[in-house]
């Protein structure tokens, strides 16, 4: 077996050193009733690499790959072009096969990357400090709510109707059994500002509200100025948590930090990471300096070594589970380190100039397609201010339309019916995302297919 270096003579010699008659002797603590004498039934035996590759390639071949079709699916996961350099770097054994940098003298590579990543995320979000990553955007959002509770000592969280319903679902799951109160609402497809409930959120602020959570651009792609909301929150002693599910948008739109956010969480997949059917992704988490000791997750900080040379270490670990156990700010341990590396490499390749260019390109292409599709008979462009994603209202239910588009080889977007089952006002809605990867031919194919399906 190719992954097992011990030979039979090795095993015998080692048992000799141990003084055990056979391998079973080492499992003596296992009750006999639970100790299996044979390989577990119902599973195949070991397999050559070539056979494994073949079997998995067959499975992979059954999926319709984004890169092979006109592709417009977004909703919190985006297909951007990831430079080949990124994948090369994350495959370096020294990055790929390292553990969490608990021995900093031989982990300066990982640590310096984290320090750079934290800085990049803080600047991108317009915040003062960012952590070394969370699992994904949705879990980061829940952690932010818990952090706000710790800071404000209030237990009510108010969630904007524009927040990704899966993110809201995760929050609901996690708070179902705690004392937290979570206020949610169902969005409406208001033309021009779908899901925009800022006025209501402001009106609803009270002295029990720990935090208001708002997503920008929201699930419908709508972009809003959060400054009034931030001001109102701060006046009420409430923290503003801003969720960003398309990190690329931060290259084009005023940052949450500039608009007054107290905590910014987001999904970083867009930068450096592929679609991967939903994971692994990259939770971004940033806040103000003053709240850093309530942050969840790992933090990397600068220090010096015994020779006075600059170096980096994991720090403020008294917040973390391995030190604080049940009093920790979070239970997170393993995070998304390698995805953070991929993000950081891609961001380094882009630089500010490249990021701005790429974000503008996304926006301009989305505007072009939105205006085209908005002219398809019966189709209404609901989101008029957006980054690279917008919502259409179709003349018919969107779910079957999307399936029919897929039959024509076009992955055209996400139906609101899938995201909001049972909400009949939304079932004609369809979210369309456009990135730099979509060509004019893709636009043509989409428009033609939509025309046909709606005809």
């Amino acid at each position, binding site marked *: 077996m190719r*992954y*097992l270096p011990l030979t039979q003579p090795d095993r015998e*010699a*080692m048992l000799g050193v*141990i003084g055990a008659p056979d*391998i079973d002797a*080492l*499992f*003596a*603590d*296992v009750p006999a009733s*639970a100790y*299996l004498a044979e390989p577990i039934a119902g599973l195949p035996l070991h397999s050559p*690499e070539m056979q494994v590759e073949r079997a*998995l390639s067959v499975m*992979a*071949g059954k999926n*319709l790959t984004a890169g092979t079709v006109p592709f417009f699916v977004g909703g919190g*996961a985006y297909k951007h072009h990831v430079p080949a350099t990124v994948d090369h770097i994350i495959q370096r054994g*020294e990055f*790929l*096969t*390292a553990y969490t940098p*608990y*021995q900093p*003298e031989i982990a300066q*590579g990982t640590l310096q990357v984290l320090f750079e990543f934290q800085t990049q995320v803080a600047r991108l979000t317009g915040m003062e400090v960012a952590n070394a990553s969370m*699992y994904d955007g949705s879990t980061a959002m829940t952690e932010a709510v818990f952090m706000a509770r710790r800071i404000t000592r209030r237990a009510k969280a108010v969630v904007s109707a524009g927040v990704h319903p899966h993110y809201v679902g995760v929050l609901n*799951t*996690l708070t179902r059994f705690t004392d937290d109160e979570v206020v949610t609402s169902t969005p409406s497809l208001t033309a021009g500002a779908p899901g925009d409930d800022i006025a209501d959120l402001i009106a609803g602020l009270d002295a029990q509200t720990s935090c208001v959570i708002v997503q920008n651009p929201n699930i419908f792609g709508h972009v809003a100025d959060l400054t009034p909301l931030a001001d109102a929150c701060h006046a009420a002693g409430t923290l503003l948590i801003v969720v960003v599910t398309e990190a690329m948008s931060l290259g*084009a739109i005023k940052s949450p930090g500039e608009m007054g956010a107290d905590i910014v969480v987001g999904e970083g997949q867009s930068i450096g990471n592929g679609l*991967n*059917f*939903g*994971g692994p992704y990259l939770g971004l988490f940033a806040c103000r300096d003053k709240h*850093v000791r309530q942050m969840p997750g790992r933090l990397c*900080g600068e220090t010096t070594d015994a020779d006075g040379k600059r170096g980096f*270490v994991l720090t403020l670990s008294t917040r973390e*589970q*391995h030190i604080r*156990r*049940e009093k920790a700010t*979070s*239970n997170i*341990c*393993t*995070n998304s*380190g390698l*995805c953070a590396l991929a993000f950081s490499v891609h961001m380094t*390749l882009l*630089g*500010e*100039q*490249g990021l701005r260019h*790429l974000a503008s390109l996304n926006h*301009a292409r989305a*505007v072009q397609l*939105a205006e085209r599709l908005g002219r398809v008979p019966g189709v209404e462009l609901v989101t008029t201010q957006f980054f690279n994603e917008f919502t259409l209202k179709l003349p018919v239910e969107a779910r079957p339309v999307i399936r029919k588009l897929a039959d024509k080889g076009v*992955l055209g977007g996400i139906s609101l019916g899938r995201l909001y089952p049972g909400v009949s006002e939304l079932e004609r809605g369809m979210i369309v995302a456009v990135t*730099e990867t979509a060509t004019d031919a893709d636009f043509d194919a989409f428009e033609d297919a939509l025309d046909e399906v709606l005809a």
Partner: protein
Amino acid sequence: MTMNTVGRVTRIAGTGAVAETYTGNRGLMLEEPLLFERGSVDRCGVDLDPVPVVQDRLAGLARSTPIGLPGLSEPETVRHYTRLSRQNYGIDLGIFPLGSCTMKHNPRLNEKMARLPGFADIHPLQPQATVQGALQLIDTLAYWLKTLTGMPEVAMSPKAGAHGELCGMLAIRAALEARGDARKVVLVPESAHGTNPATAAFCGYAVENIPANARGRVDFEALKARLGPDVAAVMITNPNTCGLFEPDLKDICDAVHAAGAFVYCDGANFNAIVGRVRPGDLGVDAMHINLHKTFSTPHGGGGPGSGPVVFSEALAPFAPLPFVRKTRDGYELVEEMQARQTPQYDRSFGRMVAFHGQMGMFVRALAYMMSHGADGLRQVAEDAVLNANYILASLKDIYTAPFADSGPCMHEALFSDDFLHDTGLTTLDLAKAMIDEGFHPMTMYFPLVVHGAMLVEPTETESKASLDQLIGAMRSIAERMLADPDAYRTSPHLAPRRRLDETAAARKPVLGWKDPVSDAA
């Protein structure tokens, strides 16, 4: 020329040569400045299509102020990260015997498979008909996990071990509430990993500790004594964090169940028993499996991982959304919509993540399982346990081995620094001396039940030669430390950095780069 802090020019012993260099580099050990010192906002390592001219629709919110994100050209980027990588240790370089972490070989086949466009380039919200292969993969992996653990259900979406714990504890919560029983206490052994109590607290339980007995196992009597109508669950790790099998686990499960509570098993150490013992046969109700430990997905310097959770019949109905079901003509992803429409699914406690879990890790783990097969996985456990016992047997005459008298260990050998007591040296000093020898040290100071703990987990992917070298070096270090302790108070000396000041880092945290100019202005 770089000098050491005291400004002396050091010469290399036995030659007239100067040890310091102009660059600060030392041959192939290269220094690398921060991105923020190297790059600038007008440099760029990508070429992009021109931006078509359109009337923008950004609601007047275009980002206009400087962001401060330096870029680098592509060659500089490759070099920046390659040079940094060389300041890291990884399994690819040598043994990485971090106890509790199962740092085993990461097959490159898995990396290749995870990058097949059919897996890597599909969107989580594509129509289900277009991702049947992906759903099949998840279902197949689920089948393996259920079969290997002897449990009837598995939740695939948790993103890591701690997230799996959360999933399990939420299911227990849901099961208790479903029977109208709002128990709030969770019992956790002292030796448990920090994520266990943190998780329990995270979803609103009150945590109480259970002591260990002299043999390093859960004190069954103390546990039994504490069971009662307020106890929701016991979280237990098996094999435990001392590297020992909990021989009473079956009885513990029976007692816990009898008391109306559930047993959550931390499966981080499943590698020791995979293919040999099915946790289901021991009676546990929920257990997470770190695919990034037992099933070889790489740790990536901290993540990502994946923590599927297997469930007993009692907890199965409460498993989170979404999940995959095999149907007559394919595979169905059960999300909120399907769960609403299907009575048997409506007890799910809900969604744990935005999408369906760590697909990239699923592919790797399945490739690994298929490669090993039922026979190979069994051999994995055997060799992992054999390797750990070989280390224990080879070092216990010189290293303090607190539980060695109580019989063999499982997949990891636990030592302590008691034997160094008179030297004033500690586990930390020993770990740092190992760095100079070219090894990653073992886990230090965990589990907490042993003072100055050193937890050595070699895994099954180490050869005898590799173990012999580690053992030889650890013996040599111990002997040298006992003979000449002062030579080892300031290790490491040969790594990219000498000992780093963690206290200073925490006292006045510097958590990001501040531009010298702009921040001064």
